[in-house]
């Protein structure tokens, strides 16, 4: 399954909904919103990311796995048991659906890392940790989890990690997104944030692992567009131990957020400045110290810059980011009603579930919308 296809360019629909008071709501809304944009996808991929959906296991890494066959499941489970305490292991609930066929084995695990494993792991590494990351006491544990995900995706043929974050999960597959939602019974989950994707891949049969969202830890990315700079983004990431095994450009975005924000300690704003950088002409007009800072970001993170047409909704624990490429070759609209914020490819998809928003506006090229839970609100 993996690596069988060359990189898959695609067009798409995306949606994200965040309740800033962290009130949980059913996945039905996000299905309704993405259903409206049916024509933006072609039935070769759809998916959802829900945040806050596993409150009873909120401190566990929730691994959603796709398996080609039972043998890969056994192999993966043996692999997981080496380093993780598996507190729960179960099939991901689905319902039979007339238009969803050829389903892989879908399984989820709630995991804790065995304590000594992280120590061993960090002892083998020699990474200088940026000051800003010192506060993150799970830093090395997360690095370890990232490495485990990479290893499963690369080494176990026929096994693929759909998501690996805490108190979040990804439900994705081949089909129209609304059908995928029904298949996974997404409406039965409640989360404070949902993102969704309908896919229009252009040169390959879809495969389940190739559907969006793409994730690492609690980062999830739904993406409309194509990363024309994929080649260099990928080579840049490989130098930091990220293996791009999924042959799709979107995967690099999740890894870039993980690298720049979590591992290198850039603020979300600066991470966005690196990934969708302002033009030099603009930077030259900034006053100090901003000019110096943004100039340095472009000088240092040039290989991380995403180029080509894209609009993205990036989810993470406690918030989401909407961002487009620098000349906005793909659409992205933002809406707000009370404490709920919407991001979508189309305004209609927002109005479909929120007929009278307080505000709806089109996002400006390259300028990120970073929405987080209200101050003091815990996810």
């Amino acid at each position, binding site marked *: 399954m993996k690596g069988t296809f060359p990189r898959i360019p695609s067009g798409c629909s995306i949606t994200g909904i965040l309740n800033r008071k962290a009130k949980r709501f059913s996945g039905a809304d996000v299905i309704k919103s993405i259903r409206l944009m049916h024509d933006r996808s072609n039935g070769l991929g759809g998916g959802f990311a829900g945040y806050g959906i596993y409150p009873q296991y909120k401190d566990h890494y929730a691994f959603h796995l796709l398996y080609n066959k039972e043998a890969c499941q056994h192999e993966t489970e043996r692999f997981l048991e080496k380093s993780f305490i598996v507190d729960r292991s179960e099939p991901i609930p689905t319902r039979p659906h007339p238009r969803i066929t050829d389903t892989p084995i879908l399984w989820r695990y709630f995991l804790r890392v065995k304590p000594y494993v992280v120590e061993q792991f960090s002892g083998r590494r020699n990474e200088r940790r940026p000051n800003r990351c010192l506060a993150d006491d799970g830093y090395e544990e997360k690095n370890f989890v990232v490495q485990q995900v990479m290893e499963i995706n690369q080494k176990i043929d026929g096994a693929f990690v759909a998501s690996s974050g805490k108190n979040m999960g990804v439900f994705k597959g081949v089909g129209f997104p609304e059908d995928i939602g029904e298949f996974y019974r997404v409406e039965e989950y409640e989360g404070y944030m949902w993102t969704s994707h309908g896919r229009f891949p*252009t040169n390959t049969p879809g495969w389940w692992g190739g559907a969006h969202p793409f994730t690492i830890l609690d980062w999830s990315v739904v993406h409309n567009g194509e990363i024309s700079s*994929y080649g260099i983004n990928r*080579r840049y990431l490989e130098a930091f131990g990220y293996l791009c095994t999924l042959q799709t450009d979107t995967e690099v975005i999740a890894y870039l957020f993980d690298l720049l924000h979590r591992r*290198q300690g*850039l*603020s979300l704003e600066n991470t966005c400045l690196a990934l969708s950088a302002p033009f030099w002409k603009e930077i030259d007009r900034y006053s100090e110290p901003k000019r110096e*800072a943004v100039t340095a970001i472009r*000088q240092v993170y040039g290989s991380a810059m995403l180029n080509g047409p894209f609009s993205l909704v990036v989810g993470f624990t406690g918030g989401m980011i909407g961002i487009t490429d620098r000349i906005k070759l793909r659409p992205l609209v933002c809406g707000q009603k009370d404490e709920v914020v919407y991001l979508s490819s189309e305004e209609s998809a927002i109005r479909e579930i929120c007929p009278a928003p307080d505000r709806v506006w089109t996002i400006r090229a390259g300028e990120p919308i970073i929405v987080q839970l209200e101050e003091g609100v815990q996810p």
Partner: protein
Amino acid sequence: MIRSLLTPDFLVKVDHQHCRRCKRCVLNCGFGALSFLDRVVADNSKCVACQRCVTFCPESAITVERNPLVFKGNDYWTANDIKSIYKQAEVGGMLLTGMGNDRPYGSYFDRMVLDACQVTNPSIDPLREPMELRTYLGSKPNTLEFEEPDGAVLTTRIGPQVALETPIIFAAMSYGAISLQAHKALARAAKRSGSLMNTGEGGLHKELYPYSDRIIVQVASGRFGVNQEYLDRGAAVEIKIGQGAKPGIGGHLPGEKVNQEVSQTRMIPEGTDALSPAPHHDIYSIEDLSQLIYALKEATRYTKPVGVKIAAVHNVAAIASGIARAGADFVYIDGFRGGTGSAPTMIRDNIGIPIEMAIAAVDDRLRREGIRNQVTLIAAGGIRNSGDVAKAIALGADLVAIGTAALLAMGCHLCQKCYTGNCSWGIATQRPELTRRLETEESAERLVNLLLGWSLELKEILGALGVNSIESLRGSRERLRGVGLNQVELDVLGIKSAGR
């Protein structure tokens, strides 16, 4: 025994019916191949096919042809081999040549093609949208740190950077090897184009001082013209270890070329040979190089990037990695097609590796070691057009340097006789009657035009690739495909075959 077995390479044909006997051709020939008796007479044996007379004849009455006289056909012993043996049998010396390796090794640039967007990702029109070529020469850290809590104030100190408005700079060519007029034209063009010129190892003439923020000053094994002021006058400092045309070989500027101005600039007595030793006599290992790098950084108070130029040889990746770790801010790699004012022909034609392979190997190695950001990678040696530039950058170079192409822009006709000092075009000579024909301002304009034309083409290429900034092409080998390359070559270049 006859005087020489050598037959002329070229035949000069004068159409006496059209010739108006103005003698312009006679005056223009730097090699003394033409004289005037009652009419223009050619000494074919002296003609090098520099085309100066052809270009300047007002009646187009002169043509230069390859001498049709052939040896009996032999695929193994070429005419070139035979003539070289005759030459050496006559004089017992090394064969000399100028410019770059001209042997039929082929080119990997010509076996790689670039990608373009169709439908799924839109191409970008550079006439409508911004298209960025700006590149910074200098070492970058791997990460940045910002002041808490807003993260808007940078706390990381970034080393010195030189901003370039195009990723194309001029290669090192010394005053002495080329004329002051040519040197000034390069400096002026670099300044106007937001690019850089490179002094080579011949020092910096005072007339170039106004352009010093656009000049890389070179420190080579002969240390000609190197003093505190010289270092202060540069935008960046380059230690020259080797050159693509003559890896492992020193330099020799004959005393005839060392006139008063050259002597002052190089800080050597007038009329003496300027000998650059093969190695630096204070560099016999990588730690010695590191000392020189830091000596130069100390001397320039860490305000300028200090880099190292090497020839592309078999082990180039490991050498470049060592240089990066020795503290260099940039690594300049010169491929085996790189030009020279003078080199032993056998060295030029048989030593070194193609720049395409060298870029790929070095970029891979530096990335694997996590030190790619530490150095700016400059690639040179046979860059012929903006397509080559784009491919070199896609393979992993930050910048390319052009020498031969720049000389061509000034009028060079690639006769490869730079080492004779007779350049009819006033470029590779110090003879005042020849150098004065090279008009500095006009040459500068032609160089500016060349950089402008290539930059426009680069923008078109980026637009076709659907990206609007050069850093999205840099090292993006996914956008390259090989045509007619075997698997090993594809692997070394790190690219896929066309169709994949």
